[in-house]
Structure formats: C-alpha cells, structure tokens
C-alpha cells in the first residue's frame, strides 16, 4: 500500500528528481556501513529477497486493492544497508512492469526503504523489550507500514498543485487541444476541478488498515516459520 503507484508524468519534475538525488545520497551513505566482503557474500541473498518482494507485489488481493510488500521481513533478514539496495532494485523491476512509473523509482525507494529500515529497527527493539517473536514482528510490521503509508501520502500531497495544473491545462501544453466548451463554463467548473486528496486519503487509510493487519499477520507467520526451520537467518542470538 505504501508503494507509490503513480505513473510517469504525473508528479512534478522537481519532486521525482529530488527523489532520485536523495535516494542516491542515502544509498551511498548506507552502503558505507557495510564491509565489502559481507556485501559480496550477501548479494545472492539480496537478489533472492528482492525477487520475493517482486513476486509478493505482483499478487494483488483484489477486494482491497492491496499487495504485500514483504519489505519488513526482507529488512529483518538483510539489515538496513542491504534493504535499501534491495528496494531500489525491486522498484526498478516493478517499474519495468508498469507497477509505478520509472521516474518514481527514487521516491518509491525512499518510501519502501523507510518501511524496511523501520521494520528492522522496530523488530530489534521490540524483541529486546518483549523477548517474544509474534508481537515483536507484528507490531514492527504494522507500525512500519503505517509510517511508510503516511510518507507516501506526504509525497503524493506534495504534487497536489501539479495535478490541479494538469486538470486545468486545457489549451496549454506542447500540443494544444480544445473541446467544445464555453469559457464561462470553465470558470464555473474551477471549484469542482480541485484535486480531492481527502477522498484519496480516506480510501487509502481505510483499505490500508485491513492491509497492514493482513501483512502484519502474514509477516509474523513467515518469521515464525523461518524461526522454526532456519533461526540463524534472523540473527537473534546476538541480542539475547
């Protein structure tokens, strides 16, 4: 849900260019924290988790228009530096399949990596505090999804003036077009042609809540399954 599904050409140029610049800067800083050998050794794991995220994102739960991101579980397994690179790769592949625009990759990387990094950090924190796997994973996932969805809403609302410009742009642009509409009608329509962001947020949050609960439960059950079979992957013993 926190993935920005906006196509190319909808967000203002300054916004998506800034997204790329900030994503590259953050990526460069985060990758400095990881040793080169560790990075090379974990690249195949990164590829596999990124592939799982791509597959998760392609399974749409139709009634609530939701797909699982699996970002939190990937964050838990990969750690904060690698999850950032993984989200970059995932967004690039998803964009190639029309799942969000190519120009939105930078912003999507920032939003999704907030989810992954926050999920990782909250999971470690809750595990340290509660010492119980189920609530630690569930609350970490739920809160990470909540925050990243608000980050996504923030990004979408930053482009509001641009959407309104697009709605009002009849007769402008590189190729002009005029439909048989009287000028006075146009003025009368202005109030109606405002972008209805509140409606969008209301729909998103109500559907999102069901999705966060569902993804929280799915992530918890996956982590429990992994904990039963390959506990070493969760690297929990270091913290106990």
């Amino acid at each position, binding site marked *: 849900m926190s993935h920005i599904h906006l196509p190319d050409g909808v967000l203002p140029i300054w916004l998506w260019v800034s997204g790329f610049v900030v994503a590259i800067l953050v990526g460069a800083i985060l990758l400095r924290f990881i040793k080169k050998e560790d990075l090379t050794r974990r690249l195949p794991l990164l590829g596999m988790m990124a592939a799982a995220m791509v597959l998760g994102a392609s399974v749409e739960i139709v009634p609530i228009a939701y797909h699982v991101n699996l970002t939190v579980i990937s964050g838990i397994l990969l750690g904060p530096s690698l999850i950032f690179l993984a989200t*970059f790769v995932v967004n690039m592949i998803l964009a190639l399949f029309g799942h969000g625009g190519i120009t939105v990759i930078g912003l999507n990387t920032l939003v999704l990596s907030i989810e992954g990094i926050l999920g990782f950090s909250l999971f470690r924190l809750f595990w340290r505090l509660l010492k119980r796997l189920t609530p630690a994973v569930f609350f970490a996932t739920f809160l990470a999804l909540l925050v990243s969805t608000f980050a996504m809403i923030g990004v979408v609302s930053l482009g509001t003036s641009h959407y309104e410009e697009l*709605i009002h742009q009849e007769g402008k642009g590189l190729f002009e077009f005029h439909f048989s509409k009287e000028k006075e009608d146009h003025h009368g329509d202005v109030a109606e042609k405002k972008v209805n962001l509140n409606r969008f947020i209301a729909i998103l949050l109500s559907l999102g809540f069901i999705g966060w609960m569902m993804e929280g439960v799915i992530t918890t059950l996956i982590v429990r399954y992994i904990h039963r079979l390959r506990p070493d992957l969760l690297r929990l013993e270091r913290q106990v």
Partner: protein
Amino acid sequence: MIQLSYLDYLAVEGKSWLHHLSPKLKIIGMVLVLLGIVTLRGLPGLFLLYAILLTLFFVSRIPLRIFPLTLYPLVFAFLFIFISGFQILFILLIFLKVLCGSTGVVLLLATTPYPSIFRVLGRVLPSLFVTALFLTYRSIFILLNVLEETQHALYLRGGFQWRHPWRSLNNISNAFGHLIIKGIDASERMYESMVLRGFKDKIHYRGE
C-alpha cells in the same frame, strides 16, 4: 510475472527489425518515450505517441497474448478517478501516459534479451547495482520454479478460501516462508557456484 519467461523467449527468438536493432538505441528510444510522457500535456500529443508505440508493437510481430501486459498498469491508474473528482479529460490524460509507458517497456523487454539490457545499464549505473539487478532477475525465475511446486502443496492444504481466513493466511504464510527458505538455499548454492566460476563483485557479459 509468469509471462516473464515468455517475454525472454520472445526477446531471444524474435526476428523482426526491432529485435535486430542495437539495445543501446532501444534504451535511448525508451528514454525518449519517457521524456515524451513527462513533457507532453495534451491529449493529441499523447495519442500520437501511443499510436507510434502501438504501430511498433504490431510491426515487431509480438504475439497478441502479450498485449494485455501493456494494459495491466491501468489497474493502478484507477485511483486517479477518485483523486480528480471524475474529470474525464484528466483521467484520459493519465491513462494515456500509463499506456505509453507500459507499451514502451513491454516493447523493450519483448525485443531485447535481458543480459543485453543489463550490459547497457552497466555502462551508466554502478556495477554493484547492476549485479544486484541481475541476481534479482535470475532469482525471480528460481522462485517461480519453487512457487510452482509450492502451489500444489498449497492447494492440497486448502489454498486460499475467504470462508476460512485464518487457515488461508496460515497457508499463504507457510507458502511464502517455504518459498523464502528454499530461495535462500538456492541463493547460497548459486553464490558458491558463482565464486567457483570466478565471481568478484561484478558480472561480465559476453562480448565485454
């Protein structure tokens, strides 16, 4: 995502002039399409761009069963109907932008083998990123194979039924967990064989 292997097959086996065109030119073409999508703000311009892309699609003899892939992103564009307050021209504009982008990308993927795309990207992007991209792309196929086996097990355990939500969530989670563990095992094996073949940070493509 299941169509991915078929797209790869088309990209390798296709014989049209677009298949023979240099990958570099095709990627430059895709960048120009993106530039058009970002800058064009009128319906006629976008209609023209979409018509050109559709012509290329049919001229390249890409099978019609691939065409629905270009329509898939419209699912996500539907939220604009709500954002815009049902402004038909705005919705049409957004839908055309979406269709131009998706048709361009499908054209690129169906006419260019992915190692060629990654080779071109490797010249402009950091090698670490391109290697991660390559490994992810490869892993999707590994996971799809595991998924096929897992699906049978999932169906035998009842699959997904809205009447039994808890059991369904359990089934799906176990399937994903199984998928991830199998995938990680496969990734470890893949890494070992890559190291045996001399892998050090960067994947070298044929012809480099």
